[in-house]
């Protein structure tokens, strides 16, 4: 590669450079997807297969290079096998994946509750979980955010967002 800069690429946290393990997840997932990709295009016309085959071949070469690099580092004792990069405290895990679970709930609930109510509920529950205090602050933020969203998306733009009880009720006013 052309560059050997020591700068931060802006996306990763500072972490020990010698841990190998967690960074195998992406290449392995990539290879699994590549395998599925090849399976899915079997039998298609040649031109429809071209890009896929080319990209999968390049990916395999790159992952092999990465594996060699990791293998060498492990063999020389410069690296250890560990998933510590993904380690998180119980509290962080609860906050992070709790909010993520609420986000899934938000996506599933929005067709029934409508945009305004569901975003209000999502913000309320998320901030409760993230221990924003005092509770009154949570209410004010969630209410304001939902109100601004309603005015901008539903009233001003007439966006095709799911409508629910709040939108139906307010339709008479605006």
């Amino acid at each position, binding site marked *: 590669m*052309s*560059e050997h*800069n*020591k*700068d*931060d*690429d*802006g*996306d*990763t*946290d500072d*972490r020990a450079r010698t841990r190998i393990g967690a*960074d195998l*997840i*992406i290449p392995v997932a*990539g290879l699994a*997807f590549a395998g599925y*990709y090849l399976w*899915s295009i079997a039998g*298609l*016309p040649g*031109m*429809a297969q071209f*890009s*896929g085959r080319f*990209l999968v071949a390049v*990916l395999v070469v*790159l992952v092999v*290079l990465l594996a060699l690099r990791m293998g060498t580092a492990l063999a020389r004792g410069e690296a250890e096998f560990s998933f510590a*990069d*993904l380690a*998180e405290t119980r509290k*962080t895990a609860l*906050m*992070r994946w709790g*909010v993520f679970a609420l*986000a*899934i709930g*938000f*996506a*599933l609930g*929005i*067709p029934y509750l409508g945009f305004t109510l569901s*975003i209000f509920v*999502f*913000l309320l529950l*998320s*901030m409760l979980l*993230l*221990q*924003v205090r005092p509770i009154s602050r949570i209410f004010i*933020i969630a209410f304001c*955010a939902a109100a601004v969203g309603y005015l*901008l*998306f539903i009233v*001003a*733009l007439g*966006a*095709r*967002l799911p409508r629910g009880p709040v939108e139906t009720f307010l339709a008479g006013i605006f």
Partner: protein
Amino acid sequence: MSLELLIDIFLGAASYWWLILIATTLGIIIGAIPGFGAQNTIIMLLPFTLAVQVDMALTFMVALYVASHMGSGIPAILLNIPGTGGAAATTIDGYPMAKKGMAQQALVLTFVASTLGGFFTAFIAIFAIGYLARIAFFLHSVEMVVIMLFGITLIAVIAAKDPLKGLISGIIGLLIGAIGADHIYSAPRATFGFLELYEGMPIIPALIGLFAISEALVMLEKRSMLTAEGRERMLRAGWRETLEGIQMALKRWTHILWTSLIGLVVGAVPGAGASIGSFVAYQQSRLYSKTPEAYGTGHPEGVLAPEAANNGVASGSLIPLLVLAVPGGTTAAVMLVVLSYHGVPLGPRLFVEDPGLAYGVFATMVLSYLIMMVTILPMSKYLSRVTLVGTTILAPIIIGFTLVGAFSPRAYIFDMGVALTFGVLGYLMRKTGYHVVAMLIGIILGPLLEANFMRALRLSGGDSMVFFSSTIGNVLWLMLLASILLPLYSSWRRNRA
């Protein structure tokens, strides 16, 4: 064009200053919310644009359009979330600046680059529209393949810390970009059985997942997104930082001008767009920089280049619509609907029958930039305070609103699922040293590259020599080769020295 006509056109556009003010404000807001780009908003507001007079409708759409390009840089800098694909390159240097507490300066850089670049290119467009329209006659599928490769080469250099991982991210991105119906036979590929993926991976939900959702998930580890010094600096910030940003930008005015020209040229080609323009401009800016190693760490030029370029694209992209009656992009396609509804004769006849309307588009752009310069620059000070908000409040708001943005373009709950899936993927990537921008370049540019590549092959009956069959194409190939070899050569010289 006579001076009299020019003055008339500007006076005509200026009489709608109030509408431009409203449209640019709305444009900045919707540009800043991923999923609510100009195209969607103009569709939503069709009842309005169809009801009013044509010059009013056009003024509104044009002002909204250019403002949305400017708005999309704001969340890219403040939250590492590009409002549209055109601002994805802005995150690379904009967000590191924000983390260091220099959000205000970075925002000012964006605003000055957008307004100056847009202003300059719109002005050029008024005088050179005929020539610019000719670009489309010379840049066909073969040439576009090479131009896109300029953007794709960014994948290799963007992850300076670990190029191998950067390349792996980029290739997986390209493979994800190759999901969906192939460009010749419409045969579905790797859709996991979802009809919703038949037309390819939807870019907005993928972008929202990779950037917004994953950023929000990572953010929760700390109470603030700022570094300790960054927080100190932000708390002290006042109007001085705005002035500092203006100085930083104006000192590099030539940089803004030439990167905006890249945008203008790319924009004038039907089917290209802001993402290509801004990635290519970023790549070129880095290539010719004396300090390429500073890119990615919060380098002002890394913010100026993509922002000047994506507003250059905005100036260019309406040219094919006006001169050839062929919309160059999705937003222009919606404008075509509105203009043909009003019975506007697009194409060569427009310039004979209603030159005021044709040139008025660019006069509106010029005025929009002037107005935005006044309205948005002072806002930097206040907007940048967003970075001081605690992550426990910021993260839920980001997740909630960007998920709605993921839903908005197609109104599929499925797309919210796509965003959440890419959110987890982006989270894993960030935690394990892979570059999300590299993947996004693959997802955005991959399908465009593939479409042009396949088309060129089909045109030639499968003869791969077609890629070297045009003079312009060959010149571009040489330039591409030089842009790959040049950095290798200079790093080799540095190592020897």
